């Protein structure tokens, strides 16, 4: 066991780095090496200008012979826009003739009662009356709290984005399953897609499709599709090879094998992918409203900009409720698979489809009565409730009465915790930091990892992103530290205490369903803008995996080992610290890894509350439609994520090998 020596080595290195960081400025001045502390502007490689140039060429000059690049994007936009307009007309705006102010509504949108009946029928069809009640209450909430119109616009974009995302993901996933080469090419691209912050690719999309719902839909699809691709490939690979052999032996063609054997057999797992696409699409709602999606996302965003706490909170809650309703529905559909008894065809059409007929009846009745009594058509505005004023008042009250306390907490954390970390990271000379990253890669992985780490870090330096990247690392590091300090004990508690586990499980599930933006609202209310607010929002958003992985790791330690501990006379505390925690270490590491990934993705969103990191850089690029700047900053964030991911995954693997949970060579 060379552990104590390595520990000594690492702590020595840390102290050295810390000293260097503290004295680097004076040291650099004394030795005339200021380029080491601050990367000279003259050395910056103007990659972002090249990218912007290439983008401009693509949009203005690129041509495929018969048609130009712009023609292609316009055709694509048309393909997406038409169905979207149809669905939006159905749910929200109605069918109109004419344009602008002269528009005359020919057919009104579906009445709110009909939509309500429709989703309840879906709930009952997918599971039971309880689900129907949950979904119904959710939609009734949207109506009574005056969020109906916005919610229907959001729903329309989800209704369009999800099928495109699912179909595209399924297609790419099947191709990757069929052609291993394609799979190998696709994988790193998917990795990058999931680590690059969404904002970074909003800019090129904006360039190609312009501001509007189409851009928002394209961005949503791109964001929501990768998990579907992965799930598809994995689910198809997991189909029992015997079932595939059976398909071949009964003389299926390739097409029949895919669509009649593989895809139906994998339906359960595929539905999980669909659920993921739905949740990610809803997650994207607010961000997509930055490039032209209307609906609830736009309401949240504009409230946030106006610091209208109440309005933002209500719209945010509406998104959550819509998300929960759709999530429960899609999960019920996934689990419903194979639980249906075939319906006899002898009974009448009406008896066979009772729900469809009830919904149809509600639709016709409410829309015809609605001609005379509008409350059957649209929920009467006079009857809506609003809690906006209440929230605003509460926050005002809290801020007036407890301003000093909140401020004290904030300053305490800023001064005592965040600023030292920030100074530490900003002070490290960049060649030293690159050296450490390479060393870590080499120590935990192999020379390949060291090389990749070095190249990625070098990219960040040479594109002139270094100091912003260090602020990113600081903010992310501080948040992950706090998330781990809170999350790991909670995970342990959830694993060893059943009742606590149940409560924590519910809280964690809820936290995970919420769109990331929602976390910002209450925190901004209390602490206003700044790094501290950003950190709290990031901690809340990224807490889940730390808790979940720890709980899983601690709970899945083999009961034989626990018994061995008990028999040798361990106290409960000793069992926890000597047996459970060490063996759960690989899982805990993976949990922290996931926490870092989520923290980095949240970082970009917190740019809205005035951080100064790479996220802010991406956000500024978005507002200025500067493609190169956005992509370079986005890549820098992705590289930080990849470096952290590879190092931690490698060390988790080392731990697993040390415990004999995994073979040394795979």
């Amino acid at each position, binding site marked *: 066991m060379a552990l104590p020596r390595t520990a000594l080595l690492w702590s020595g290195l840390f102290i050295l780095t810390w000293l260097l960081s503290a004295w680097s400025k004076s040291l650099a001045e004394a030795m005339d090496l200021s380029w080491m502390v601050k990367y000279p502007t003259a050395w910056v490689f103007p990659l972002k200008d090249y990218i912007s140039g290439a983008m401009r060429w693509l949009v203005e000059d690129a041509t495929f012979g018969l048609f130009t690049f712009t023609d292609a994007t316009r055709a694509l936009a048309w393909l997406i826009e038409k169905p979207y307009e149809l669905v939006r007309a159905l749910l929200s705006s109605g069918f109109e003739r004419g344009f602008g102010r002269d528009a005359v509504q020919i057919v009104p949108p579906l009445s709110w009662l009909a939509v309500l009946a429709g989703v309840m029928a879906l709930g009952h069809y997918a599971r039971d009356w309880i689900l129907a009640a949950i979904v119904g209450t959710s939609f009734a909430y949207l109506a009574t709290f005056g969020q109906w119109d916005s919610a229907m616009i959001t729903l329309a974009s989800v209704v369009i984005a999800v099928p495109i995302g699912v179909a595209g993901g399924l297609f790419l996933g099947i191709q990757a399953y069929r052609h291993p080469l394609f799979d190998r090419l696709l994988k790193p691209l998917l990795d990058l897609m999931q680590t690059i912050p969404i904002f970074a690719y909003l800019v090129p999309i904006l360039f190609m499709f312009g501001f509007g719902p189409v851009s928002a839909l394209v961005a949503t699809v791109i964001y929501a599709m990768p998990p579907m691709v992965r799930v598809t490939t994995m689910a198809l690979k997991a189909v*029992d090879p*015997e*079932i595939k*052999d*059976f398909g*071949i*032996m*009964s*003389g*299926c*063609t390739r097409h*029949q094998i895919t669509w*009649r*054997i593989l895809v*139906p*057999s994998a*339906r359960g797992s595929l539905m999980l992918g669909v659920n993921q696409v739905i949740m990610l699409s809803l997650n994207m709602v607010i961000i997509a409203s930055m490039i032209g999606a209307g609906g609830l996302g736009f309401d949240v965003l504009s409230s946030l900009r106006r610091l209208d706490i109440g309005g933002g909170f209500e719209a945010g809650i509406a998104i959550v409720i819509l998300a929960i309703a759709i999530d429960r529905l899609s999960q019920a559909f996934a689990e419903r*698979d*194979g639980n249906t*008894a*075939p319906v006899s065809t002898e009974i009448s059409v009406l008896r066979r489809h009772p729900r469809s007929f009830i919904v149809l009846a509600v639709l016709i009745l409410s829309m015809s009565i609605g001609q005379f009594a509008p409350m059957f058509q649209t929920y009467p505005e006079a009857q809506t409730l609003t809690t906006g004023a209440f929230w605003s008042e509460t926050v005002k009250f809290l801020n007036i009465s407890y301003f000093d306390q909140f401020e004290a907490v904030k300053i305490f954390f800023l001064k005592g915790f965040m600023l030292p970390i920030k100074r530490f990271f900003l002070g490290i000379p960049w060649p030293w930091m690159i050296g450490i990253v390479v060393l870590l890669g080499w120590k935990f992985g192999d020379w390949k990892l060291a090389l990749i780490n070095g190249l990625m870090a070098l990219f960040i330096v040479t594109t002139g992103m270094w100091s912003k990247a260090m602020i990113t690392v600081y903010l992310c590091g501080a948040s992950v530290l706090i998330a781990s300090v809170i999350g790991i004990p909670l995970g342990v508690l959830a694993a060893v205490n059943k009742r606590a586990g149940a409560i924590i499980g519910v809280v964690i599930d809820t936290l995970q369903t919420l769109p990331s933006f929602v976390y910002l609202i209450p925190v901004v209310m209390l602490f206003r803008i700044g790094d501290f607010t950003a950190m709290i929002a990031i901690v809340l958003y990224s807490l889940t995996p730390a808790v979940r992985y720890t709980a899983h790791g601690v709970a899945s330690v083999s009961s034989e080992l626990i018994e061995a501990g008990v028999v040798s006379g361990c106290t409960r505390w000793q069992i926890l610290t000597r047996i459970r925690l060490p063996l759960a270490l690989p899982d805990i590491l993976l949990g922290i890894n996931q926490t870092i990934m989520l923290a980095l993705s949240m970082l970009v969103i917190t740019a809205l509350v005035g951080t100064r990191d790479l996220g802010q850089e991406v956000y500024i690029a978005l507002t200025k439609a500067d493609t190169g700047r956005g992509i370079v900053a986005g890549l820098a964030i992705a590289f930080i994520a990849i470096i952290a991911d590879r190092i931690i995954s490698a060390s988790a693997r080392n731990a697993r090998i040390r415990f004999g949970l995994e073979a040394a060579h795979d």
Partner: protein
Amino acid sequence: MNGQPKLSCHNVWKLYGPGAEDYLHKNPEATLEQITAADLIPAVRGANIDIHDGEIFVIMGLSGSGKSTLVRCLSRLIEPTAGELHFNGQDLRRVSEREMIDIRRHKLGMVFQHFALLPHLTVLQNVAFPLSIQGQSKTRAEARAREVIRLVGLEGRETYFPRQLSGGQQQRVGIARSLAVEPELWFLDEPFSALDPLIRREMQDEFLRLQALLKKTIVFITHDFDEAIRLADRIAIMKDGAVIQVATPEELVLNPASHYVEEFTRHIPRAKVMSVGSVMTRCEVGQSDSAPGDGGPGNGDQVATIPENARIADVAHAVVSAAAPLTVVDETGNTTGTISREAVISVLIGPGPAP
């Protein structure tokens, strides 16, 4: 065993690893050690098998012996590295993909170890699946499916889903499904290995009953020597990818080709595999007291006769309890010899008489 074999495979090889084909081309006689030294994995080595019309041909081997790979080479689920395959005289390795699909749709059936039922379809839909793949109409496919479901004794469970059935019932569905297209050649890949011993026994009986009814040509894979003995007309024993002996159960027990085969046969009660003919005292054919036709065990007013091809275990009781040696007759009823109590007892309790 007359005429052309239904399925014949000649010198079939399957090696895994990079450059397997080239290697085999250069070293057509490579031994196990040479192949392993070349970093290739030998799954099947130079297998020669002829399967005749209407016989139950069992391929027996322990796990990793290559039996599953061999049967997958025979059905071309796996492309062999080298060798020839003939089905009804047609070169299977030369047929186009389209033709192969056609052969599979109409002439081959397969039962799998873990049933391989489609989880999202009901029993009826599962059994009708191979028919609907061919493009048959739903009513026709379902009518035929109901027929085979009745044949395997599952009527009344047509609307169940696979997971609502026990293992034995699931395999009955698998059997029904493979029989729905009336295959000429029926592959069964360890069909009963995943079942409990009692159910396994029951399914073996069921299988023999079906075969007596349908008279298919069968390739049956198993790792269970008792099962092989019980079901087989002929057995091929595999080890390390090579077929080391092809013989009837009786020949295997009496003349094992190697020490390895002997290991298997040692614990097999000889009475279960040895036939009356192999231990009887021969006499001139036709020297019969009874007229041809009225022979047969326990039949007629004279001394009971027993058939020559009966297994000792099945007639032991009759022979041992009889006062005098019994007359043995062949299939046409001609007397071929007699069998004494001593001969049967020595098979039952000790090593058989020295040849």
